[in-house]
């Protein structure tokens, strides 16, 4: 028995001695907290080599998780990648530091149309990272109607083959948009109508899922799903020819994931260096190429057009100007958010 204990001790010693604890070096370590599988990680090595700054790279699954972790405190963050509405909440609640744009010369490559967004009107806090839409991902072997309207998610023909997103904003948003309302509605009557619409749809729905949707559609488990354009691009790059993506003509949600510096940051300057690095045309291009998402970087887009002209035909990568006009970017709902949450719980429990 003693031998086992000894073995244990030796193992521990070896582990602690040989494997260097991440971020235990002498230099600066910045905490970068990103969505899972959302960055070409070889770029991080490159940044470390170039600047000598170490990066502690960790990942999260949802905006809400990020907000909860930032709000709970107890951790310091230097660069995080929240979406639009989460950014506006962070700004409102003083959770972010103002970025010094003189340290980010590469900001000039960001598409002018994406500067000064609604969620950060004076563009003091955020730098766009990727953007996209919400739409309907479908299997062309199983769907023969045109997928260009939210109505298809309510079509009884596809009973049991529709997946919805277990996200209040997205699912309720689709219903609101189908009714011709804004996805940011704070009108009780409009919400009641949308809720009724989702309840009416419930018998047709196979399930409400999170990010597993992509695999279900790829696997032919369901005919269509409400999901992000990123899922569609993922499957496109992987070579699924029978999977397509439609953006409803009524308009949809356009989302932006941006880089911001939380108030808990201890290394603001280094964080800005990291942001600037990510905006470098070559880096931004390689990141977009590896991840498949649409870059806000004009130079990166130019290179994408040269090397992958075909993706600009896909609504998932390059949605129609007209539809974007009719679409909404999520804004923070403040106190009203609890109402949205309750509605989803009520729909699911029934």
């Amino acid at each position, binding site marked *: *028995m003693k031998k*086992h204990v000894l073995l*244990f*001790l030796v*193992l*521990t010693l070896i*582990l*602690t001695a040989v*494997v260097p*604890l*991440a*971020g235990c070096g002498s230099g600066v370590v910045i*905490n970068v*907290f990103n*969505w*899972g*599988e*959302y960055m070409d*990680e070889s770029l*991080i*090595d490159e940044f470390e080599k170039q600047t000598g700054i170490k990066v*502690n*790279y*960790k*990942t*999260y*699954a949802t905006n809400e998780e990020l907000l909860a*972790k930032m709000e*709970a*405190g*107890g*951790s*310091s*963050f230097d660069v995080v990648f929240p979406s639009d509405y989460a950014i506006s909440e962070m700004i409102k609640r003083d959770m972010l530091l103002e970025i010094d744009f003189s340290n980010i010369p590469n900001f000039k490559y960001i598409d002018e149309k994406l500067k000064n967004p609604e969620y950060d009107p004076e563009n003091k806090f955020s730098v766009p990272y990727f953007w996209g839409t919400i739409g309907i991902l479908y299997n062309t072997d199983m769907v023969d109607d045109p997928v260009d309207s939210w109505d298809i998610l309510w079509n009884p023909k596809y009973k049991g083959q529709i997946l919805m997103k277990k996200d209040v904003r997205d699912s309720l948003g689709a219903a609101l948009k189908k009714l011709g309302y804004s996805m940011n509605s704070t009108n009780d009557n409009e919400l009641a109508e949308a809720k009724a619409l989702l309840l009416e749809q419930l018998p047709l729905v196979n399930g409400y899922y*999170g*990010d*597993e949707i*992509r*695999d279900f559609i*790829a*696997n032919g488990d369901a005919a269509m799903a409400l999901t992000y354009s*990123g899922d569609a691009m*993922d*499957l496109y790059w*992987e070579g*699924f020819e029978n999977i397509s993506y439609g953006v409803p003509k009524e308009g949809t949600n356009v989302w932006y994931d941006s880089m911001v510096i939380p108030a808990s940051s201890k290394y603001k300057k280094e964080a800005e260096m990291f942001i600037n690095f990510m905006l470098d045309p070559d880096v931004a291009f390689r990141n977009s190429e590896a991840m498949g998402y649409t870059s806000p970087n004009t130079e990166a887009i130019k290179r994408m057009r040269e090397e992958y002209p075909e993706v600009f035909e896909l609504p998932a990568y390059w949605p129609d100007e007209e539809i974007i006009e009719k679409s909404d970017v999520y804004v923070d709902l403040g106190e009203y958010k609890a109402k949205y949450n309750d509605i989803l719980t009520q729909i699911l429990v029934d």
Partner: protein
Amino acid sequence: MQKAIKRVYMSIIFLFLYAPIIVLIVFSFNKSKSRGQWGGFTLDWYIDLFRDRQIREALYFTILIAVLSTLISTIVGTIAALGINNMTKIGRTVVLNMNNLPVLNPDIVTGVALMTLFISIRMELGFLTMLIAHIVFSIPYVILAVLPKLRQLNKHTAEAALDLGATPAYAMRKVIIPEIMPGIVSGALIAFTLSIDDFVISFFTAGTSATNLSILIYSMAKRGVKPTINALSTLMFLTVLILMLIINKKNDKGEDIII
């Protein structure tokens, strides 16, 4: 006849237990990134394992925390069990009830409660808080595994040793500890298993500077769990299987190993 029924029954149970594991292992050799789609055989994910810094780091934290928390909670738990065994009845009842709380409490409550504690005493969430959390939920299991063995212990043996001139420490080392060793080992094994597999409590207490495999897998769900994780799990699974087989071989006497 009865034997045949038993065989069939156990085969069905084992099929049920191993079906998802076989799926995982098979898909670790799958070229396609999507589950359920066979894109041809590849070893790429195993090669990728050595390049992926996030997986490397998560594995490192998982093992380090499991080893440290097992070591600490086994030692502390055994000492505490020795003490509890010698307490008055009332004292023992109170302490054991307190000790049972993390066992009875849902993980999610334990995790959330510890997180609120760390945050309210302004402790930065990270490696240390995660380690403490793992020790917190491991010690009770060690105590629960060691105590029954202490109860079975023949009091007179230790007394005899003392009468024969052994120092208390010597008596402890040579008489008591060997007697309760099976309890200590099974306590340590429970602690190690729980630590390796824990998701919920780590998720709430890890902060951003530490992580473990479960947390990483959970955050990967957004873009589909990378088959690299399947490759890693396959390797870990085989390691455990081989280790167990070796232990079993050495332990041929048929002693019970209870995990």
